[in-house]
């Protein structure tokens, strides 16, 4: 048994390149990140690595400006284009890495001007250069590899017994891992070349979706597995959880290209343009969407029955369900006016008067940013009795009074709630109140939910208060009222949307504030930048500085002498939305600034000068 085992490494030696390796083995990260950039920067500008980051920050700063409705933004990506591309032959890399390269090359997008760069072909072999540039650690590793290879061979030859198997394993591991590095070495070269190509046009990297029209693409698992360590795109057939961990392993550098929308010469949309274009566009699926709605519409009587039986209804699935719910509201309304008419012929239409079993429909739009419990409860109350005045006090007090009001009137209220999981209704304390309202026998609640994870909003107690029945209502209808598309996207991209206008805005505000306010802001920005450099954590928000620590720093710098004064200064910033404050899991207050790193650097520079 020992013998056969030992002969394996030899026999399988070529295999690891092609076959999936054991996952999860970590290797030093430094090489993959450090090497290419170092080489490139020296090759291109001859300046130190430090100046590179600076240069880039400066160069790209202006790209982040937000196009105003009139201004046409001129991209200055030209600056990046000036670098001399250095042609370098691809490392005669592992056979398996090659197809990927070809793939990527073929898929490399070109500017719309049609200037292709497929033609960039390796011209000069420079295998020796690699050796010369190989840093020390790599050479060390190489020798370790040689040693371990020798050890393996010796063992096979000598046929030693199994007590040294552990050593052998280590040796084999070293052997294999360095082999992998070699493969990666090739990748590094490749990467570098990519980046050089990238200076001529946008490049295509592993993390970005492939651009080729799909269909003819065959799955080449080989290339994926060889590159797995580096490529954030794991093989496609991984089970979901594996994929998650593969992409979120700590230390995996997220390799994405440095393209920006500005470098694509893409002008961002303005509100006017968005709506103008949208108006002219005809959805090819409009008929199908309407058909889907009609199908859902057929369940209206069933829903009405379910509501009448004391259940709540929650509609979920992709697409806006607002129009559908509106039609349902109409259905319910018609149903009851008709029923009322049938009940008392003489009275004609039930006019929602006092007495009698009347029915009102209240529509709540949860996605409206200003939606508040008070407004919702107030509307319900006014549906019962238009002259009713809500009592002052917290939500639970208001709820109690509304419930009392309901109990004293013979009226059914159907609450049609759009987007129960919208941000305004996700604030703490709102769902329990809604649940209690829904649990009232005279309230029928039908709501829609847009996010796929909405069920997490409720614990079992709330669930049983809501008493929900869930229906899949995928409509594919566009979210129109629910979204403020242009602002949302710009916020997503970090373009200023609703706050002070970036750097200029901040300087403007600071200009009108006293000296110590400026100092405090400079201090805060500095701290946040330091934290940003340290952690680089995966959270989308900027890292925050602890409130306490910040105060102490401010005290030491003689910016303020009391917490009161400190608070006052912060308040000013808050009013201009120049800082954010949140609490972490432990409940400590964290202060931060809602700007991107580049902006922060610019602001800091400005403040220092």
């Amino acid at each position, binding site marked *: 048994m020992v013998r056969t085992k030992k002969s394996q490494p030899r026999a399988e030696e070529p295999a690891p390149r092609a076959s999936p390796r054991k996952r999860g083995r970590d290797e030093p990260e430094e090489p993959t990140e450090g090497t290419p950039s170092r080489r490139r920067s020296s090759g291109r500008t001859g300046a130190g690595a430090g100046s590179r980051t600076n240069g880039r920050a400066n160069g790209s700063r202006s790209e982040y400006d937000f196009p105003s409705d009139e201004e046409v933004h001129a991209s200055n990506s030209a600056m990046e284009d000036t670098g001399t591309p250095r042609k370098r032959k691809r490392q005669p890399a592992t056979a398996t890495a090659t197809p990927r390269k070809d793939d990527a090359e073929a898929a490399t997008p070109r500017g719309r001007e049609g200037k292709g760069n497929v033609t960039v072909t390796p011209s000069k072999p420079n295998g020796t250069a690699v050796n010369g540039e190989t840093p020390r650690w790599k050479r060390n590793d190489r020798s370790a590899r040689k040693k371990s290879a020798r050890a393996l061979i010796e063992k096979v030859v000598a046929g030693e017994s199994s007590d040294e198997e552990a050593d052998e394993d280590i040796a084999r591991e070293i052997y294999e891992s360095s082999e992998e590095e070699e493969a990666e070495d090739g990748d590094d070269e490749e990467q570098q070349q990519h980046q050089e190509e990238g200076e001529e046009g946008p490049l295509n990297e592993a993390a970005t979706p*492939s651009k080729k029209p799909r269909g003819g693409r065959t799955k080449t698992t080989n290339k994926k597995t060889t590159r797995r360590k580096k490529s954030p795109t794991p093989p496609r057939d991984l089970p979901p959880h594996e994929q998650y961990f593969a992409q979120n392993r700590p230390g995996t550098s997220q390799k994405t290209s440095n393209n920006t929308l500005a470098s694509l010469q893409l002008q961002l949309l303005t509100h006017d343009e968005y709506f103008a274009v949208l108006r002219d566009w005809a959805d090819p699926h409009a008929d199908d969407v309407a058909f889907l709605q009609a199908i859902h519409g057929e369940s209206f009587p069933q829903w009405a029955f379910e509501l009448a039986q004391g259940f709540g209804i929650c509609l979920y699935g992709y697409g806006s369900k607002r129009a559908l719910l509106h039609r349902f509201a109409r259905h319910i309304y018609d149903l009851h006016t*008709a029923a009322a008419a049938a009940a008392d012929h003489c009275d004609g239409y039930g006019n929602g008067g006092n007495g009698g079993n009347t029915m009102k429909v209240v529509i709540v739009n949860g996605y409206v940013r200003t939606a508040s419990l008070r407004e919702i409860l107030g509307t319900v109350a006014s549906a019962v009795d238009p002259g009713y005045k809500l009592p002052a006090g917290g939500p639970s007090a208001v709820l109690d009074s509304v419930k009392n009001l309901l109990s004293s009137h013979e009226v059914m209220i159907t609450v049609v709630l759009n987007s129960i999981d919208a941000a305004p209704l996700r604030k703490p304390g709102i769902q329990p109140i809604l649940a209690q309202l829904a649990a009232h026998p005279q309230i029928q609640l039908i709501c829609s939910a847009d996010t796929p994870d909405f069920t997490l909003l409720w614990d079992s107690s709330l669930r049983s208060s809501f008493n929900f029945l869930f229906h899949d209502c995928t409509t594919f209808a566009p979210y129109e009222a629910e979204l403020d598309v242009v602002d949302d996207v710009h916020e997503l991209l970090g373009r200023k949307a609703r706050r002070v206008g970036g750097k200029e805005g901040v300087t403007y505000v600071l200009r009108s504030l006293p000296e110590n306010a400026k100092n405090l802001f400079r201090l805060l920005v500095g701290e946040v930048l330091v934290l940003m450099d340290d952690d680089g954590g995966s959270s989308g928000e900027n890292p925050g500085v602890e409130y306490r620590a910040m105060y102490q720093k401010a005290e030491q710098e003689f910016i303020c002498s009391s917490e009161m004064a400190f608070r006052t200064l912060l308040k000013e910033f808050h009013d201009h939305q120049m800082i954010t404050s949140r609490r972490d899991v432990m409940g400590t207050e964290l202060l931060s600034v809602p700007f991107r790193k580049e902006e922060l650097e610019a602001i800091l520079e400005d403040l220092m000068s």
Partner: protein
Amino acid sequence: MAVDEPLGEAYEEKQHQAAYIFDPSDAVDDGTRPAKRRRVSKKLKKSEAHTVASTSVYPRLFDGAESERCAHIRQQLFEHTWSKIESRIQRILREANQSTLRQVTSFLQAAPDHAPVGKIPSAFIITGPNIASQDLLFEQLAETLQLQADASVVRLRSGDASNLKAILKKMIHDAVAKVTDDEENDLEVAVSKDGRRFLNYDLEALHTHLKSSPRRHVVIAFQDSEAFESGLLSDLISLLSSWLDRIPFALLFGVATSVELFEARLLKSTCQCLYGRQFDVEQSATIVAKVFKAAVAHSEAPLRLGPNLVSSLLERQRDQVASIPVFVSSLKYAYMCHFYANPLTVLFSEELDEDALHGENLEALRCLPSFRHSVEMAVKEGDIQRARLLLEDDRYLTTYLRDRLEHFRHWAVKFLRILKIITINNSSSAGLADMYLDSLLRGVNLSDQDAEIGESIKRMQPSDSILFLTRLLDVIDNGDPSLGLDAGAGDTEEAVMELSDILADIKRLHQENEEEGKVLRSKYSGQSKIVRTTVVAQKVQLSRDTAALTDNDKLYTDLMDRVLEQLRIVLRVEGAEDLVFNEIWLYDSKALYKDVFIPRPRGVGERALSRPHDYLGCSCCRSREDQVMPTFPTTAVLYQLYLETGSLINVADLWSAYYAIVGEDNEGGLDERTALVLFYRAMAELRVMGFVKQSRKKADHVAKLAWKGL
């Protein structure tokens, strides 16, 4: 947009209003609306004509061919049957808490006598994780304490108040308001004797109020004590204890974990203010078993719920600690589905009038698989005449149907009785549920499938068998009210007589043997074989011997054989699926229940986005697995690309990838600005659905938040 257009102006106007009252009468109606409304109202008027306005109406089935009356009967039947079941369930739920209620009340009543001075009497009620039914428990507690212990009860939930002031406000408000419920009450609270106004969180106000309307206790109930912030709770308790000499406070804590854990969260000094006792609540498993008996197995429940459905309900109850209200609603939903969508449920009605038996219903009856099977059996048996009558003669079919339904009622009772007998030996009612689920469809037959039960009866010791037979006869004589079983043996009268004779004989034999000091046994009982150890020539020999049976033993063996024989007659019933017309009263569909109570929104969303064709049904988007078509809705295209990315996404690259798919280079592609508009919209949708969020790591990058299939 196109979809929204016919929806009237008010709809568009009010879309950015957070809440408003829906009133289409002030909106301008366009062409399509009034037509629809007229149709609905006409239909309604007719059906509502003979009843008071009931809020919902069943649709007419058979494509509308069903008569109004039938639909109406079905609805009434549903309301009638379910209300009976629901009242039984409610009774069980209320009774379940009775013992806890009594204990807590007596504790609080006696507390002033034996509680040490300066300590607040407190009851810790271990509710377990079933927080959903806590509400009922505390509601009952409040009622009982108010009535029996002369207390005013304030119920607090963690959500109600986040700080001491708010809690005090609510406490005082509730305690004062509960008693009087008048408007002048507010005045009374607000002003003290010397005309000074109290702050609304000043306990002095409560004190003054109690002077005017004295109470023995002011009970503060913390429903979910663990959810309260521990510091807050400590503060409140020490504050209350300082008022204890003026206001007779008592506390109730609902504890989901254990008292020790709860105590660990409080300050030591706070704990010393409490004088407490622990009370247990009946565990949800036993309550579920009781509800099962009353709602599913009960003889008056018209619908037999099949094992598929019920076992998945019970399983969910066990595995996910779903609350009892959910269990009850699931049962209700099963009833709703059956009566709403099965036109034959009209036949449940007591007086089967001719209306119910009109053409379509009879036609549907003839289509039932169980009916067809029975006709085929008739043909096979050579009873062609009957088969022909069944198929052709409506009148004959009607009589047959009545007969079968009558038979079903007998069967249901018999089935329950047998279940009860079989489960005599294991006292837990959970056993009944399992047995029910096991044998509902295939029936009970001691000679084949359930031979094991027979064996175990056969092996019984005399004392056991006496007990068993006594209980058996007791069940037959008295029935079981919790299952709705009446007394009476039904069609097995003779067997029962025989069994009681046997019981008498066994008793006599047992008596005799006991007098002689011997053990009565049968040849089946375990000890009939004994192992003898003999030492022969220093070797141990083991030999098995059948112990000699005495005459009495032989008699007993005979008796046990006869018992089994009789039981085989008594305990024999066919399965539900073997009965003709079982489709009318058997409901066993799990799919609907799962869809409606256990949604998979993630899966649905992912499916919609990765295979939009499944929903849209259009010709252009039919795709193979994981393939993107340029005709996909924009969000679906982006979603596919999104799936390929790592945890950080470069929007610029995403855009170029997207544009490469839909852009002008392709056939019928979009121009850049239109594509960008759609791209924007899709990005915003991805964001609102929680797939991406802003990332500040790099320019124009967003972070990925969802992984498919997780």
